[in-house]
């Protein structure tokens, strides 16, 4: 088991290196640092000296891959690729283009993100699974048909509609909670409620339909027929057999997103003014802060890969048949 985890972590290294190469190509080869400087400083009335200064402040004035001006190992390390990309492996995110410590910012801003995504995830999971089980109980009836129609309709509504509608209805008309903003501590609750409700409702249609399919697949298996044949109540069949066996397909989708909850949601955070990592990324895009976007891409990939490893581990916990070696 431990050997398996270590092997998976080792496998992750080339993938992360690949992610780094992609971001490196995207940020430094497709466009040269000169272009970035010009975008920041404006295209007109800009002196070459100003561009050089902008570049050297951010360390973008070095050669891309191979520094011929240096000796020994410095040839490899005193380059943009090493300084701005490889260092990410040590979770050393360096400074943003505006001079702030990215690592510190991330450690501060992931908590507000988590305050939204974690409740959305947990409440959403609970609700969708309960709804899906209820629909599976009524399978083949009109309730089932109309529930599926409702799910498809809810899936077809833009997420923006849920957000704007929620803000308008709950925030503006009913004045129950503030429309947007955030505070730390327990006061945060009143700011968190609305985004959480919106997030849960927005994911309901898709989630319910997805779990319904999973449950219906399990319900038609032989062991369910056996359970019914030996006289178990439908409730016992659903909870005791179907739900437990459906855990494996459910886990595949669920565990993998757990680590990425830290990243927050770009759109929700932008709408509700939550100072999390999602709005951090958006601010970086809008102020064209390349260092932050690079750091977030790397962090996102790391968390995704962690999620994949966790998924595999969780299989062994719920399904004794699965052995990792």
């Amino acid at each position, binding site marked *: 088991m431990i050997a398996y985890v270590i092997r998976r972590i080792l496998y992750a290294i080339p993938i992360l290196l690949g992610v780094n190469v992609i971001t490196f190509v*995207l*940020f430094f080869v497709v*466009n040269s640092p000169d*272009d970035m400087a010009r975008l920041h400083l404006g295209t007109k009335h800009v002196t070459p000296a100003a561009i050089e200064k902008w570049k050297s402040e951010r360390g973008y004035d070095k050669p891309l891959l191979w520094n011929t001006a240096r000796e020994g190992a410095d040839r490899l390390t005193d380059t943009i690729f090493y300084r701005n990309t490889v260092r990410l492996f040590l979770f050393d995110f360096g400074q943003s283009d505006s001079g702030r410590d990215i690592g510190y910012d991330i450690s501060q801003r992931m908590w507000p993100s988590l305050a939204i995504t974690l409740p959305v995830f947990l409440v959403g999971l609970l609700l969708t699974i309960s709804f899906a089980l209820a629909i599976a109980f009524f399978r083949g009836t009109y309730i089932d048909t109309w529930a599926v129609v409702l799910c498809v309709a809810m899936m077809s509504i833009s997420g923006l509609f849920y957000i704007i509608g929620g803000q308008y209805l709950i925030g503006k008309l009913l004045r129950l909670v503030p429309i947007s903003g955030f505070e730390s501590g327990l006061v945060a609750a009143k700011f968190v409620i609305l985004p959480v409700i919106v997030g849960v409702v927005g994911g309901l249609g898709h989630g319910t339909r997805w779990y319904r399919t999973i449950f219906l697949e399990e319900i038609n298996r032989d062991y369910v027929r056996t359970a019914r044949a030996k006289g178990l109540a439908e409730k016992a069949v659903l909870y005791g057999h179907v739900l437990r066996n459906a855990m494996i397909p459910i886990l595949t989708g669920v565990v993998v997103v757990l680590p990425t909850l830290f990243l927050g949601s770009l*759109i929700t955070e932008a709408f509700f003014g939550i100072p999390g990592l999602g709005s951090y990324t958006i601010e970086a895009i809008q102020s064209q802060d390349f260092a932050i*976007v690079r750091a977030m891409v790397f962090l996102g990939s790391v968390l*995704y890969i962690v999620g994949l490893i966790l998924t595999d581990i969780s299989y062994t916990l719920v399904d004794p048949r699965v052995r990792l070696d």
Partner: protein
Amino acid sequence: MQVVLLKTDVLFFVLLALAAFYAFYASRREHLRAPWRQVAERPLGMAAAVVLSAYLVVAVLDSCHFHPRLADNGGEQAYSSEIVSLLDVLVAPLRANVETTYSAPFAVRAYAKEVIVDADGSTRRGYPPLEHGGAHLADPADRGADLAARTAQGLAGAGFAWAALVTVLVAVLARRDARGWRAMLAAVVAGRTRVPWRVVLLTAGLLLALVGVCVTVAPYYHVLGTDKTGNDVLYQALKSVRTGLLIGTLTTLVMLPFAIALGIAAGYFRGWVDDVIQYLYTTLSSIPGVLLIAAAALMLEVYMARNEASYTSLAARADLRLLALCMILGVTTWTGLCRYLRGEALKLREVDFISAARAFGVPHRVIIVRHIIPNIMHIVMISIVLDFSGLVLAEAALTYIDIGVDPSMESWGNMINSARLELAREPVVWWSLLAAFVFMFTLVLAANVFADAVRDAFDPRLREVR
């Protein structure tokens, strides 16, 4: 007029041509006709198809761009530098009737109070009459009667068109089945036809009624109001149809060659090819999609800033950005399809008829083209229709966080983006948002329903268990 072919227009027409070719190809092969027939027998699926084709017509009209000819100045031909589309010509009144600022749907008076100068020179503050909305009315109080008359006129026109459609369709069906016209009509009305023509005709009738009312009313009133700069919201919503459809379809078209080629290569050749391709898509898919899109969009901006001079017009620039967005979205979505295709190719290569082909010494190229590709096309088809609705929704969300289409381009995302703050106004400006959401919802719902029908017909294994 002088025809202009934007890059996305070309790709869109290529896509239509491919679709037409596929339709021709499929119509001659029973194993492809059978699942499509099954799709055609689903009432909901057919209703969705009618709605989708209405959207498609709008998008096609809006993709025929040209420079309009200016008024003759001494025999020399002169063209406007502006690029317009056939749709713009068809809905010219909507495009031309620009107010100064917001106005509510069917309003005859402005949304905001202004200083009005009366005939006798005195000034007062009030709601001035709109420049175009209801301008033909002698007395604004007649609005209700005028609207009713025009609506009735529109409905009557739509009714005639619908009756003609029913007559022609029933006549065609009766001729095909060699039955009497009356018997056929009775069968259609009773819903006893294999293809649910009753549902098709009802959906078409509903659409025709909407179009009919718009044709008679929209030139005189702003049916969906106007936005901040006074532009007609209905016009914007119609123009956005093209953007939405293009993003939903071109993204798939752009990524399809890569997904098919790499997926098949990985599954068919295995060995190091498989390793390399798997590494490639694992790496790409491990970057969260929205972050990759954000990074790429940021770089696109730098690229556009560097090559500012090479864009001849605003439209060309917006067009390039749309294309780039499709490509970026394509990069983030192809990995899923590629993984499926690899798995399918792995299974197929061990199947007897392919082993036999290999044993006969058929070259790999021929095996792939003749045996593998036809057998994976259903997966490609399903993934095209399933991805579509998600992509349309993604456009709105991405545009909101500034990494979507160009701000100068009409799109539902831009409409929502510019209108969302207006809910804070008194009285509330709701029409822009609602128009964008309703247009988007209709398209996505139709796409979802149609996608389900296609998936059920083409892949019985994926069919939801009953």
